[in-house]
């Protein structure tokens, strides 16, 4: 039997395991939308295409599966670009389906035509324009394969309207074989032996873990290595949750807003085991002074990450989980021969002393609500078990610092691109992936307004997403930089006119709360979290609170500004 392109597409999505697709219709994809009601796919209608891509991204991060979104040509497609770049920077598997004008019109500046394949070439792992319906199933199969394997990433497929209408015999390709794509996932045995020996010999080792540990599901092997060999662990923003935050070996995040202990430990370590991280400038500070005493080992699935920013001594190209498991196997016999706990005791004690000397802290107040205390209270009320999404800015750093994460896939934040407006639509996606979990978007009053329209999506789908706005009336992170480095020239960072967030919630059919007094914080937050459906909590916090510690951009990690 012959199927139309639209029917083939939906059948392929089903076979790829897609359950929910976030999208927004338009002329070029109307044939696909025409078939959607006949499919078992759940379609979530967003209110802006940026919401669709972030929701697909949030779904992917919370579930570990490939997220999927569907938008129309032209503006529909360009509206996803920020979200595609967000997913690309954080290596998130997403397949973006965009409509395109009919093939005979391509290149004619037709209505709602844009060269989306050209636009997204630098911010996708790969992209396709399907010109022939007989290639469609093949391309969709490749797109999902590319998105989820190797270093994951977004893959865009551009679908001209006439290709969706044309009919052909549907053949599901059994296998995907690409001569030009064979990611190396198995660790090199010789390198594993070398790294294991370095770990045995190290006196002051530290694990610096990134998002790759979570993506590869390597958290268990990492936790085993750290706990059995008594190695302190720090992580990047993307790596939070890959090691239990309640563990004594946990140092907190490193880098610009990392903990004193983590940054001091990196500076004094004799072995840094970097796993699934990429030595981003927000992590290293001044590269030439990063980990000056250490032998650097770098485990990453992407060869281009290695030797890109920092020259490392031992590279290991492999899937992080497989590499960590190989190290576990290699080092297990050593546990009987050597007492790592005693051997690393002086080092672990020193690291703990740093943590005690300058813990993450803030000056409490009885008159105003401290934003950090909001995050701490959320942690208490949720027992640390919620899925936390964030936007970008001060609130994001406070969420990373003060909500202790014990599990992977529970902290969703735009790490690489730093996309304001990411958190709320991502929370919607995460709620579809994890209906069993409480999903909270910790937001700023600036960021939340960047995708506030998705309140309709959340309410419409009866989602219990809770938005907690740390409202300081400023674009706080920029204001902090202006205060510290630009002579308090608060140019365009004061949000003079703000909506009434409580009334806004009500206007959309959600529930709104406002908290202004420290004494009400716990009670009202608890009430808000227990309220069914979508909830906004507008928490008026200390206006000019800063995020500390802070390493100024380009400075060494030890040059921290402390509370």
């Amino acid at each position: 039997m012959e199927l139309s392109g639209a029917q083939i597409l939906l059948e392929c999505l089903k076979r790829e395991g897609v359950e929910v697709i976030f999208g927004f219709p338009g002329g070029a994809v109307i044939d696909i939308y025409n078939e959607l009601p006949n499919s078992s796919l759940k379609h979530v209608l967003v209110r802006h295409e940026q919401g669709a891509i972030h929701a697909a991204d949030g779904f992917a991060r919370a579930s570990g599966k490939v997220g999927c979104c569907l938008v129309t040509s032209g503006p529909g497609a360009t509206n996803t670009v920020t979200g595609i770049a967000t997913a690309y920077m954080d290596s998130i598997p997403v397949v973006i389906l965009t409509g395109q004008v009919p093939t005979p019109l391509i290149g004619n500046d037709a209505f709602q035509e844009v060269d989306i394949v050209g636009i997204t070439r630098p911010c996708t792992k790969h992209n396709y324009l399907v010109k022939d319906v007989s290639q469609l199933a093949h391309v969709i199969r490749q797109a999902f394969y590319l998105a989820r394997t190797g270093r994951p990433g977004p893959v865009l497929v551009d679908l001209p309207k006439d290709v969706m209408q044309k009919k052909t015999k549907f053949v599901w390709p059994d296998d995907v074989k690409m001569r030009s794509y064979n990611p190396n996932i198995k660790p090199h045995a010789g390198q594993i032996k070398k790294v294991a020996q370095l770990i045995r010999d190290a006196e002051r080792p530290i694990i610096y873990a990134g998002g790759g540990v979570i993506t590869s599901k390597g958290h268990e092997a990492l936790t085993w290595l750290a706990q059995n060999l008594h190695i302190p662990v720090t992580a990047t923003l993307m790596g939070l949750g890959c090691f239990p935050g309640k563990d004594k070996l946990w140092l907190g995040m490193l880098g610009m807003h990392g903990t004193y202990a983590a940054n001091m430990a990196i500076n004094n370590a004799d072995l840094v085991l970097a796993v699934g991280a990429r030595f981003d400038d927000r992590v290293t500070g001044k590269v030439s002074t990063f980990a000056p005493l250490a032998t650097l080992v770098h485990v990453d699935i992407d060869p281009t990450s290695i030797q890109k920013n920092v020259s490392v001594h031992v590279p290991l190209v492999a899937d992080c989980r497989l590499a960590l498991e190989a190290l576990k196997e290699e080092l297990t016999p050593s546990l009987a021969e050597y007492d790592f706990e005693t051997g690393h005791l002086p080092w672990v004690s020193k690291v703990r002393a740093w943590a005690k000397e300058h813990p993450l802290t803030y000056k409490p107040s009885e008159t105003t609500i401290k934003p950090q205390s909001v995050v701490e209270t959320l942690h208490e009320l949720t027992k640390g078990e919620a899925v936390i999404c964030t936007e970008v800015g001060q609130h994001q750093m406070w969420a990373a610092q003060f909500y202790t994460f014990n599990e992977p896939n529970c902290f969703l934040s735009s790490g690489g691109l730093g996309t304001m407006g990411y958190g709320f639509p991502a929370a919607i996606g995460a709620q579809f992936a994890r209906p069993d979990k409480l999903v909270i978007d910790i937001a700023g009053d600036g960021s939340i307004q960047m995708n506030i329209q998705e309140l309709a999506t959340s309410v419409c789908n009866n989602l219990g997403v809770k938005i907690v706005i740390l409202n300081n009336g400023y674009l706080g992170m920029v204001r902090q930089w202006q205060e510290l480095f630009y002579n308090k020239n608060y140019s365009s960072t004061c949000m003079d006119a703000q909506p009434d967030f409580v009334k806004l919630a009500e206007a959309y059919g959600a529930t709104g709360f406002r908290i202004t007094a420290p004494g009400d914080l716990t009670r009202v937050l608890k009430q808000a979290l227990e309220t069914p459906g979508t909830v906004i909590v507008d928490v008026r916090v200390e206006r000019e609170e800063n995020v500390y510690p802070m390493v100024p951009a380009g400075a060494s990690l030890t040059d921290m500004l402390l509370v």
Partner: protein
Amino acid sequence: MRHILSVTVENEPGVLSRVAGLFSGRGFNIESLNVGPTLDPGVSVMTITTEGDEQIIEQIVKQLRKLITVIKVVDLTDLKSVLREMVLLKVNANDANRAEILRTVDIFRCKVVDVSIDELTIEATGNYEKISAIVGLLTRFGVKEVSRSGMVAMKRSIQN
């Protein structure tokens, strides 16, 4: 240092743009780039001349390999290989210097491919040094126009 990369790619639309975009987006330098089909209609070979220190060249090679449409990347710089570039030069020629130009053409085993009253068009083929030398020598007569093919290259079968 100058490096010559031989890049085997899938012969499909957009592949040149992916490669060129990679260089511009990451701030790498392309000195010359040549593309042509191979005997396999599905495969093209690009010869890219680029410059950079060891770390940059390593990144360029790895980033190229990361492109889904790139099949193979070989850095020919440290291998024994045949390197050739072709250049067309339109040179001012009058009765006083025509003989001198022709002598130079002869010495370098170039060819005159077009003649008019006051100019000669010369075809020169050779490696980088030879092309530089002939361009240098002919400049004093007044070169009106230059068109270069960019380097094409091939690894020698016998490496020792």
